[in-house]
C-alpha cells in the first residue's frame, strides 16, 4: 500500500443503462507510483482512467486527487494530464504550439514559456523540432509530442491511455524503456492503461488487473505473475497449466492437495482461501517445467510425449501429453539443447518443482 495516496478511488461505479462499465471499484494509487490498469477490452480500465481525467462522471462513488474530492471537477481544473491513445495532436498547430497549448492560459512571459517548451521537448528527445508541422511527424514523434504537451503542464498525475498500442514492436519496446526512465526522472504518478501484459509487467510498480468492471487483483508485477489470485488473472498474464486437485489437509499457513500424476503438493495458503467441497485448482507456469535430457535426473519427474511444437526463435513451445492428465501440459524450453528438433510423438521426461505451483481461488470475487 502506498504511504500517501495521490489518487484514491472509493466505491466508484459507472452504469451505462443496465451495463456496468465500473462496478464498485476501490483503489489507492501512491504519489510517484507507476501504476497500470491491465485488462481485456471492455473491462472498464479506460472508463476508470477517463473518470480520473474528468471526461467521465461516475454514477456512484468518490474520486480524490491529492486529497481533493474531484468526482465532479471538470477536466480543465484537475491536476492531471493525459496522453491520448491516438495522441490527439492539434493538426492546425505546429509542435511548439502544441506543447505550449496549455501554457497559454498561465500567461507566462514569452521567454519563460519558450524555456519550458524547449525543456519539455528535450525531455522527450525532440529538441529543435518545435517548428515541425503536426502532419510531418512519425508515429513515435507524435507520441513524444503528446508526452511533452502533458508534461510541460507539470501535472501531479500523468494519465496514459494505451499510448504504445499504435507503434510497431521495436519502437514500442524502445518507448517502454523511455517511459520508465522518464517517470523516474520527473517523479510524478503515472497511470497507464494497457491490454498488453508484458508492457504492464515491464513498466509498473504495481498493476491492477480488471475484468468486467471489477478489479480482480492489485499487486506488484512479480507478485501478480508468480502468485495470481484467480485462474483468470493467471490466464491473462501469460500461459498457465491448470490442474484439478483435491484438498487433503489444511493448516493455518499452508494446504496440501492431491493431484493426478503430480502427487501430493504442499502450497502456501492464500488470503481468504475457501475451498468449494474439497476441489481446488492449482496452476504451474509453462517455463517452470523443464525437459530432462539423456540420463539427467531430477527429484520430481514425469513422463510424457511431444504432441505439438512451435518454434519461436530463442524458445520452443511444446505441448506434452501425459497419461492420466485431462489436458496436455504446455511448456517453454530454450533451444540450447535442441528442443526445436524434438520429433512429434517422442517420449520425453520432464522435471518440475513442487514449489512452483500456485493455488488459485474460484472466480467468486469477480463477475462476468
Amino acid at each position, binding site marked *: 500500500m502506498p504511504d500517501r495516496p495521490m489518487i484514491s478511488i472509493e466505491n466508484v461505479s459507472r452504469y451505462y443503462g443496465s451495463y456496468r462499465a465500473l462496478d464498485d471499484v476501490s483503489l489507492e494509487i501512491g504519489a510517484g507510483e507507476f501504476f497500470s490498469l491491465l485488462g481485456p477490452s471492455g473491462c472498464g480500465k479506460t472508463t476508470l482512467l477517463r473518470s480520473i*481525467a*474528468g*471526461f467521465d462522471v461516475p454514477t456512484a462513488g468518490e474520486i480524490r486527487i491529492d486529497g481533493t474530492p474531484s468526482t465532479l471537477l*471538470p*477536466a*480543465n481544473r484537475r491536476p*492531471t*494530464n*493525459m496522453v*491520448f*491513445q*491516438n495522441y*490527439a495532436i*492539434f*493538426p*492546425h498547430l505546429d509542435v511548439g*504550439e502544441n506543447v505550449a*497549448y*496549455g501554457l*497559454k*492560459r*498561465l500567461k507566462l512571459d514569452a521567454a519563460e514559456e519558450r524555456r519550458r517548451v524547449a525543456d519539455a521537448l528535450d525531455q522527450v528527445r525532440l529538441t529543435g523540432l518545435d517548428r515541425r508541422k503536426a502532419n510531418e511527424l512519425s508515429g513515435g514523434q507524435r507520441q513524444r509530442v503528446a508526452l511533452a*504537451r*502533458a508534461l510541460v*503542464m507539470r501535472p501531479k498525475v500523468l494519465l496514459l491511455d494505451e499510448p504504445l498500442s499504435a507503434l510497431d514492436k521495436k519502437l514500442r519496446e524502445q518507448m517502454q524503456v523511455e517511459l520508465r526512465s522518464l517517470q523516474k526522472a520527473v517523479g510524478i504518478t503515472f497511470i497507464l492503461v494497457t491490454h498488453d501484459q508484458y508492457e504492464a509487467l515491464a513498466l509498473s510498480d504495481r498493476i491492477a488487473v480488471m475484468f468486467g468492471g471489477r478489479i480482480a487483483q492489485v499487486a506488484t508485477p512479480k507478485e501478480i505473475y508468480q502468485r495470481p489470485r484467480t485462474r483468470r488473472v493467471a490466464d491473462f498474464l501469460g500461459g498457465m497449466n491448470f490442474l484439478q486437485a483435491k484438498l487433503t489437509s489444511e493448516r493455518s499457513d499452508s494446504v496440501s492437495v492431491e493431484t493426478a500424476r503430480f502427487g501430493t503438493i504442499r502450497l502456501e495458503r492464500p488470503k481468504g482461501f475457501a475451498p468449494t467441497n474439497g476441489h481446488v485448482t492449482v496452476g504451474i507456469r509453462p517455463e517452470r517445467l523443464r525437459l530432462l535430457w539423456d540420463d539427467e535426473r531430477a527429484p520430481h519427474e514425469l513422463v510424457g510425449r511431444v504432441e505439438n511444437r512451435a518454434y519461436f526463435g530463442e524458445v520452443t513451445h511444446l505441448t506434452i501429453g501425459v497419461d492420466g492428465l485431462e489436458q496436455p501440459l504446455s511448456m517453454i524450453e530454450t533451444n540450447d539443447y535442441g528442443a526445436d528438433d524434438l520429433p512429434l510423438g517422442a517420449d520425453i521426461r520432464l522435471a518440475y518443482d513442487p514449489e512452483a505451483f500456485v493455488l488459485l481461488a474460484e472466480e467468486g470475487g469477480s463477475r462476468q
Partner: protein
Amino acid sequence: MSSVAIDSSPGAVKPAARGRWMRSEEARGLAMISPTLLYALALLLVPVTLVVAYSFWTQNYLEIDRSFTLENYRQALTEPIYRDLFIRSLWISLATSAITVGFSYPVAWFISFHGGAHRNLWLFLVTIPCWTSYLLRVMSWKVILGYGGVLNTGLMSAGLIDQPITSLLYNANAVVITLVHSWAAFAILPIYVSLQKIDRSLIEAARDLGDGPMRAFLRVTLPLSMPGVVSAFLIVMIPTVGDYVTPKLVGGKDGVMIATAIQAQFGKGANWPLGAALSVTTMVLVSLVAAAVVLALRLVVRRIR
C-alpha cells in the same frame, strides 16, 4: 501498380509506357468523368467566352459593332447608378452570408455534437424547406413580412406594437431575411461536415490542458471547422450577389440589385454589350471580395491562440 511488373519489357519502352498509362487509375478516372467534364466545360466556357466577348463590343441599334472598345466598362464602373447597385449587391450578399453562417453554425454544431443517434433525422429536417419551390418560399415571406402580414398582425395582437412595422417588406432588409432563410440549409451542411470530421479527442485534449468549454471551442473546434465556414460563406455569397428573383419580389425600390440592371440591359434596354460588361464586372468583384473574405477569416482564426 501490378501492370508495372507485367509491362516492363525493356525493348519497347514507349508503347509499353503508353499502354500502361491507358490502363492506369488516372486514365480510367478521366475516362469516367469525361462526358460530364466535356458537358460542363462546354456549358461554362462557351457562355462565359461569349459574355466576355460581348462586353468589348458595341450595340448599334439592331446590329452589333464588333470593334474592340472599353466604353461598356467605363459606363459600368463610373455611372453612379451602377456603382450604387454594385455596392448594394455586395453589401446585401455579404450581410446575407455573414448572418446565414452565424445562424447556421450553432445549428450545425448542435447536430454534430448533440444530435446523437438522430443526426440524420435532424439533417433531413434541415432540408425540408428546400422541398417547396424557391419562388413559393419567397412569396410566403411576402405573406409573413407584409403590412398586414403574419408578423405584423402577430406582434400587434400580442400588444408589442401599435402600428404595423413598414420597414419589413420592400427594402434591403426583406431581401436579406428571405435570402438567409433560403440559403440556410446550404450553409448548415458544409459546416456540419467539417465539424463531423473533427476528432473529439482533440477537444478533450484542449479541456485536459486547462481550457474551459468556450476556450476549447475558440482554440480547437472553430479553427478546425474553418474550411466548412469558408465554403458555407462562399456558397451563400457568390450566388446571392447576382440574385434576381428575391429582390424583384420582396426588394421593392430600395432592394434592387445588380441582376435587375443586367436583366434590363439584355431585355428592355437592348444593350447586350453593357449587360455583358456589368456581368463580367460582377464576376470579378465577387471573386475579389470572396478572396478578401477568405483571407480575413483565416487571419482572424490565426489570431486566436
